[in-house]
């Protein structure tokens, strides 16, 4: 794997925020590479700079200094519009609170990123959205509205939405943060399945438990990389099966 060029490369990344007269150093020189097909967890407590990290990795924010190369493209100097284009074509976001549009069906939610890509026809858009929903196992929920689905199902729609534009990296921000353990493990099973298919995934979380389902964990602390280790990937399916059966109420 290390023979490949990194899909994502950050070098001495710094990000300062001006808060009145004070300057907060959220990132103080972070460097790491992520290679194609890797399933990486970015860990850290609140205040460690992981949200700032994710915003920069997602091309929604620019570093104060340092380099960020995504899929061979330097992003530091790009305009707002160019960053929007990269977000639309190269990045798939999965958020903690799903961020699905209300009163919009599952398939229409999944189609959303392709709306901003004029190269994709509406028929092609629908086809790819249905395919993505199938990948997350929601073929039978295509025309459901978000409020007709469980949290786990909504998050799966969100994952389908992140897949639909065939991004070079999937960025997940506390994607299991709003879910119970069983559902969290189900979601992790989907991520592991995507990993098996060769997708590159960066998963931000503060739960060490969730990090064990990835193959590499980068731990941030006070704006610096504290630990970056590759480890054994725990099988989410096995963990799920090992859980006690859900309580039933008769």
């Amino acid at each position, binding site marked *: 794997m290390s023979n490949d060029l990194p899909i994502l490369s950050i070098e001495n990344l710094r990000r300062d925020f001006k808060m009145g007269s004070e300057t907060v150093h959220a990132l103080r020189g972070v460097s790491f590479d992520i290679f194609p097909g890797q399933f990486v967890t970015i860990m850290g407590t609140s205040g460690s700079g992981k949200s700032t990290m994710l*915003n920069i990795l997602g091309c929604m924010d620019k570093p104060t200094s340092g380099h960020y190369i995504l899929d061979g493209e330097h992003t530091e100097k790009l305009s707002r519009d160019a960053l*929007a284009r990269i977000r639309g074509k190269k990045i798939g976001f999965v958020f903690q609170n799903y*961020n699905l549009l209300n009163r919009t069906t599952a398939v229409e939610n999944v189609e959303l990123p392709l709306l*901003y890509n004029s190269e994709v026809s509406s028929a092609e858009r629908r086809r790819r959205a249905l395919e993505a929903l199938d990948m997350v196992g929601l073929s039978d929920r295509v025309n459901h509205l978000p409020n007709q689905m469980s949290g786990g199902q909504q998050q799966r729609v969100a994952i389908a939405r992140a897949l639909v534009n065939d991004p070079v990296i999937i960025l997940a921000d506390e994607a299991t943060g709003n879910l119970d353990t069983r559902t969290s493990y189900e979601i992790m099973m989907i991520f592991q399945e995507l990993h098996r298919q060769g997708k590159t995934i960066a998963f931000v979380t503060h739960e060490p438990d969730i990090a064990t389902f990835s193959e590499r964990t980068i731990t941030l602390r006070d704006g610096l990389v504290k630990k970056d280790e590759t480890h054994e990937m725990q099988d989410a399916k096995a963990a799920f099966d090992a859980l006690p059966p859900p309580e039933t109420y008769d």
Partner: protein
Amino acid sequence: MSPITLIKISLCALLRNRMRTFLSVLGIVIGVAAVITMVAMGEGSRQSIKEQMTSMGTNAIIVMPNWNRRGGVQAESSEMLEEKDVIAIRENATYINGVSPMITVNGQAIVGNNNSPTTLSGISADYLKIRNYEIEDGVMFDDAADRMAKVCVIGQTVVKNLFAGENPIGKTIRYKSIPLKVIGTLKSKGSGDFGQDNDDVIFTPYQTVMRRFSATTNIRQIYANSIGEGYAEKATAEIMTILKERRNWTKPTDPFRVFTQEEMIQMVTSTSDMLALVLTVIAGISLFVGGIGIMNIMYVSVTERTKEIGLRMAIGARGRDILMQFLFESVTISLMGGVIGILLGVAASQIVKTVMGWPMIVSFASVIISFAVCFATGVFFGWYPARKASRLDPIEALRYE
């Protein structure tokens, strides 16, 4: 983003908030309907006045004494018109093909037990041509042969009032105890929109009125007919020159006032035009208020959908995609309001026309202009909220609760 997608996104957003959309549309509907109706009213009254004036004869010119009034009281005795003026114009004017004096007497026309309060007009034969009257039955009197003759030509209303369906030719009307023999009747011209009846007339030779009824040599008005459209100016100038020359006039002020058809129409319509303008401006203000309503609702919409905007930006929407989306929504609201408003305005105009009998004319131009103004309103009032949306920071917007 393709235009079709844009339309779809915007319509979906509008349909999601039906009540709110309906109320903003209503603001525009009321504005546009009011503008359309007011313009129709203005245009209608203008046209009806014009038609009425035209029914007088398209090339008519009227000469009147130039009353010099101060504070509503005649301050200075004015120069009077006389028969010699009529003769001078008839003989010397080159841009005139008909001229007639007009002297009127008010009274009752009586036949047996019937009477009719019709004004007696003393004229010469040219008057028919100037005012577009035509003989239906019998003959018109001749200026030379019937000078001072006790004959008359009557309109259809008089025929109806005095003769009740009988043939009036050869019968006698008594006017102020003087018998006048009916020698002809006029074709009906109908009535104008202000209720005056063009058929309620009795014409008699002007010499008959001057000698037998009012014992005067003064003429109140002279009617003339210019030789065609475009000669009105020359004809009035010529008349004025003839009248001044006869009197060796040297004063700076004109002794008479000469109006062309055009000037008379302008005089009469200027007041109603002003009123129509004021009403249209008020209606326009209500359209403006409707626009402010759109702006307000778009602001609410942008704030309420901050998170949605953040998401759209996160997954690849550029600022201008967001701008277009919101702009399209506001334009859709205003155009929907425009279409409904135009239909409502046209319907209201028809109702006013039918129920109240007012002349109403919905012009094509007013419809097109209203539609264009609606589009502009949508863009103008939608622009600022849409730009605000397009400039949101995706991180902040996603965090917004």
